[in-house]
């Protein structure tokens, strides 16, 4: 089966630091694949380069077989690839609902001219955006906070909101960068539930996570990075026992 996402010899150097070092990676459709690795392994950099938030030093990224390496971030998003951030990036001055409504940007069309004149179809589109955004909030369980300012939500809810916002764009591939970081045990459990339900939406999920229990619980496949290179790959049980993985993690201490 063709992978949804593929990287070929992908590299990113920051001065002397090789955050990504000739990385070959394949993500297959419909699965939840986790990427783990010690701090500084290059996980966030991988997401940044794939979404072209920062350009790679070398190598290629293919999405559904199409090269996206030099495409702009918003074009990549329009092709069906979006992500969340390890350090939250909500539109913190906007309401919870508005955040999700921005998530529907790609699935609506109103431009300067049509919006300024509030043409009838814009009016209808706006209602559709609002209604569907409410549904997404219900899906993730934030519907009681619809009109709150996003920045005033408790941290755990902010993480969930970022996820809802990404879901609203109905991506084919969703990359989650440490969605459980900073959450307490109960919130983490809710997040696990939520991620499992995302799979049912026909969205492929790539998950970066430090919480091993979470990784083992939700993922079908695990890739381990260390110093920008892939050191192991396989199903969760195999990874748990892998020598190289143990060494990378222990070697850190």
């Amino acid at each position, binding site marked *: 089966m063709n992978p949804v996402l593929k990287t070929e010899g992908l590299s990113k150097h920051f001065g002397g630091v090789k955050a990504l070092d000739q990385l070959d990676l394949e993500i297959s459709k419909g699965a939840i694949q986790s990427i783990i690795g010690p701090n500084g392994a290059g996980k966030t950099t991988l997401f940044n380069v794939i*979404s072209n*938030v920062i350009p790679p030093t070398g190598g290629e990224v293919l999405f559904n077989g199409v090269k996206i390496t030099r495409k*702009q*971030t*918003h074009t990549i*998003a*329009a092709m069906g690839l*979006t*992500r969340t*951030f390890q350090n939250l*990036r*909500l*539109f*913190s*001055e*906007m309401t919870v609902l*508005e955040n999700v*409504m*921005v*998530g529907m*940007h*790609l699935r*609506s*069309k*109103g*431009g*300067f001219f049509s*919006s*300024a*004149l*509030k043409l009838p179809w*814009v009016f209808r*589109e*706006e209602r559709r*955006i609002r209604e569907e955004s409410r549904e997404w909030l219900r899906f993730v369980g934030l519907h009681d906070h619809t009109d709150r300012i996003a920045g005033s939500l408790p941290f755990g809810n902010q993480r969930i909101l970022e996820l809802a*916002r*990404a879901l609203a*764009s109905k991506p084919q591939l969703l990359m989650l960068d440490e969605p459980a970081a900073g959450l307490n045990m109960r919130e983490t459990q809710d997040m696990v539930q939520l991620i499992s339900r995302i799979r049912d939406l026909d969205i492929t999920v790539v998950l970066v996570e430090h919480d091993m229990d979470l990784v083992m619980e939700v993922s079908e496949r695990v890739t381990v990075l260390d110093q920008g290179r892939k050191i192991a790959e396989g199903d969760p049980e195999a990874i748990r026992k892998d020598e190289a993985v143990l060494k990378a993690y222990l070697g850190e201490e």
Partner: protein
Amino acid sequence: MMTLSLMKKPLAGFVLFSILLLLLPFTVTNDYYINVLIIIGINSIIVIGLDLLVGYTGQISLGHAAFYGLGAYITGILSARWAWPPIGGLLISLVMVGILAFLIGIPTLKLHGHYLAMATLGLGIIVFIFFQELDFLTGGPSGLVGIAPMSLFGIPFDSDLSYYYLVSAFLLATLLLSINVVRSRVGRALRAIHGSEVAASVLGVNISRFKVGIFVLSALYAVTAGWLYAHYITFISPSSFGFMFSIKLITMVVIGSLGSLWGAIFGAALLTSLPEFLVVFENYETSVFGLILILVMIFMPRGLMRGLEDLIKRMIDLGRQNLKERSPTS
């Protein structure tokens, strides 16, 4: 509170504001104040546009006086030198300045950082020099005379009162378009860009397209204001369109409230009418503005409009608490 609910229902606010504009002239005793109201209206149009750019999208322009000046000079020159009708001057200046803003916006807004501020600062200086030096067109430092008074489709606007209503109509149109933009997919994209460009772009927002779009739109508002100004005053000189005026416009946006259209109008009204009350300070006008700006930034960092809103909210909360304490049954 009425002011609070108005913020949430801008269309109700819009209707009330229209009625206010309609009745305002009947409340002023001195004709001179109609004059001031007209200038307030013209400045409000610029400041609304600037607020869309600065307050909503977070991009700073230090050269909006140049767009305003170009609006005034293009129509002024066409009118005074070639006897063009005002409507022709408006159309030509909208097209020309629209293209100019687009050409400036494309390279500067693609880059991160304060390139737009610098580019518009430069533009302001260059345009100002043109106004001064191109004597044969602009009349140079001593100004351009002989601009025809406003007349549209055969209707003359020769009294102050009729001009006031003309400006009000343009102000309301600008305001309505802006309310619609703000409360739309476009407005959300603009605020998203302000919040986090990276997050907006991973959700598919084409950052440079929206930044350039709003920059051009705000320039067009300024052009319209310049056109209204030129055919009202009928004499223009470079000094009205210099760097200081750009700063004054930014001050109006900031004082009113970044990202609130009502605040923009409030800021324009306050800073335009203030000199009338502060004639005693004459030469210190700029310093007084600076002082006001600093005080507002320190004590009401979200702008006067929001500052007042916060104050009212706090008072309501206090009132509620008092009520609760007095009647334990509720």
